[in-house]
């Protein structure tokens, strides 16, 4: 369960102030698939980063599974991200020196999962995203769609209950974008993973149980 209560996020650039989110309240039930849509600069990424505890709101509350994240230390927030949340970014952000398999293992390394176990889990996950046997390839030897699938596998490494996707298909062609979206949808349906996906691509709205529209840092329509 994700709850945002009257969240405001302001950025200060010199003396200039940018209000990225201007009083957003939103709740996402467990197992729900929510698509957040809005034009560029509307505050979608900012919203997702706040949900993912990568950033803190200027005011308002972000509550994850009943826990007010503003009360958590940096260490606790790190553990929350590690254990409960999986991120998928538009730019994939794979570590170039590590193989696909090692990239998937990384969150488990941070959690202290023993080598054998994380190895076999990483292989399972690669199989899940349709990259069976591709584990020893480096990111630069993979296509964009494949890299994004590795990123999804990595996001799932520590069995998170929440998957946060920021324009996951933004850098992909239609076909590989569909493969990625199908994987995300399947995880939501079959594994019950809560998905919050932000995009400005209207064609992705069909994947969600619910679409939330955002403009100028405000939710303008939630159905």
């Amino acid at each position, binding site marked *: 369960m994700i709850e945002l209560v009257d969240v405001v996020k302001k950025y200060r650039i010199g003396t200039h102030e940018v209000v990225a989110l201007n009083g957003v309240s939103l709740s996402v039930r467990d197992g729900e698939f929510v698509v957040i849509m809005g034009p560029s600069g509307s505050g979608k990424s900012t919203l997702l*980063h706040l949900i*993912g505890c*990568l*950033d803190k709101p200027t005011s308002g509350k972000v509550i994850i599974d009943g826990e007010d994240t503003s009360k958590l230390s*940096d*260490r606790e927030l*790190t*553990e929350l*991200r*590690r*254990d409960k949340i999986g*991120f998928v*970014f538009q730019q994939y*952000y794979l*570590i*170039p*020196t*590590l193989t696909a398999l*090692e990239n998937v*293992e*990384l*969150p488990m*390394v*941070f*959690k202290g999962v023993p*080598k054998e176990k994380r190895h076999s889990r990483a292989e399972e996950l690669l199989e899940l995203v349709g990259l069976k046997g591709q584990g020893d390839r480096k990111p630069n030897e993979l296509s964009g769609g494949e890299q994004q699938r590795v990123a999804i596998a*990595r*996001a799932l*490494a*520590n069995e998170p209950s929440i998957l946060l996707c920021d324009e996951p298909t933004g850098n992909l062609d239609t076909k590989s974008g569909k493969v990625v979206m199908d994987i995300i949808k399947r995880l939501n349906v079959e594994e019950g993973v809560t998905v919050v996906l932000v995009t400005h691509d209207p064609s992705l709205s069909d994947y969600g149980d619910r679409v939330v529209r955002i403009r100028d840092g405000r939710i303008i329509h939630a159905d």
Partner: protein
Amino acid sequence: MLIELALRNLARTKVRSTLAIIGIVIGVMAISSIGIFGESLKAVILENFKDVANEVIITPNYIHGYTSIDARTVRKIETIPFAETVIPVKSESALVEYRGKKTYVTVYGIDVRKTKDLFELEKGTYKGCLVGSKIADFFKLRVGSRITVARKDFRVTGIIKEGARFDINPNYAVILPLRDFDRVFNDREYSMVIVKVKSIDKIDAFKKAVDKIVNRKENKVSVFEMKMIIERIKNVFGKVTLFLMAIAGVSLLVAGISILNIMLMSTIERTKEIGLMRAIGAYRETILKLFLTEALILGLVGSAVGGALSFLGGYSIDVLILKTAKYVFAPSSIVYVFLGIAFGILTALISAMYPAWKASKLEPIEALRYE
């Protein structure tokens, strides 16, 4: 995995990592080579004194009004069991002449049977008048030359090999057999007694015995241990070595700055990666550890290579300057190699501290968004 990650990061910028390692290699090599050299230099110098380490010099206690040691006291000293050889010495400053040249020197009277315990000869025999090498040079003396000491004629029977002693400078000495000395200077008392103690660790016992037997009523004599002077020399050379190593340490400092520099570059280049790792569950300490591990690897590799090469460096300097390599692998030299290695590793770690700290302080989202 952290080590694996660190290794791959270093491999990513091979040239840079190699240069950093070379810096450490040079620094460690400079420090350790100089350490080896300093230690060898000390050993070479102490070698000259190794025969005198167990010697003790007994002199009259001038403060209490004694200017000489009488024969009775010498006999008492001879009874002390820790004494191996007791060599009473008389001395007097006197005019020495040869073929119109003259100079004042210190003339010593020593039992002919004992001079061999104190000096080695360049030429001739111990049985008569011995002259130091500098005196021989000055007068152009040879074995058989007739010199005048305090207006009495003597035939030189031996020329003393160049050397160093603390009590008698062999190079400028003229040594007469006691019998002759007494003839020239009319039966003086002894000016000092040189004692070779059975072993170095018996010196303290010997000193105690002297206090008990000779100085019981009055402090007639003072006792000097050669050991003390040797300790002093060691100490001074230790300091010189340390000073030279500190100068060599500058090269390690430069290496440290280069590591600081490449690590800072690395944190900036890898900002996004750091952000990503923080996002997926790396603690600040994990990032800190990663960077320190990278530095540690540079330090370990550089120091190991530098340490190994420092034997080569130490060997070269020793051969070049001291003309001997026999102290290069002495345990006391090897200590300096380990010291150099420790400094190398420490330098790498200290240099990486600031960049590692900086990397660990990055806010995940700012790091991810960094362009």
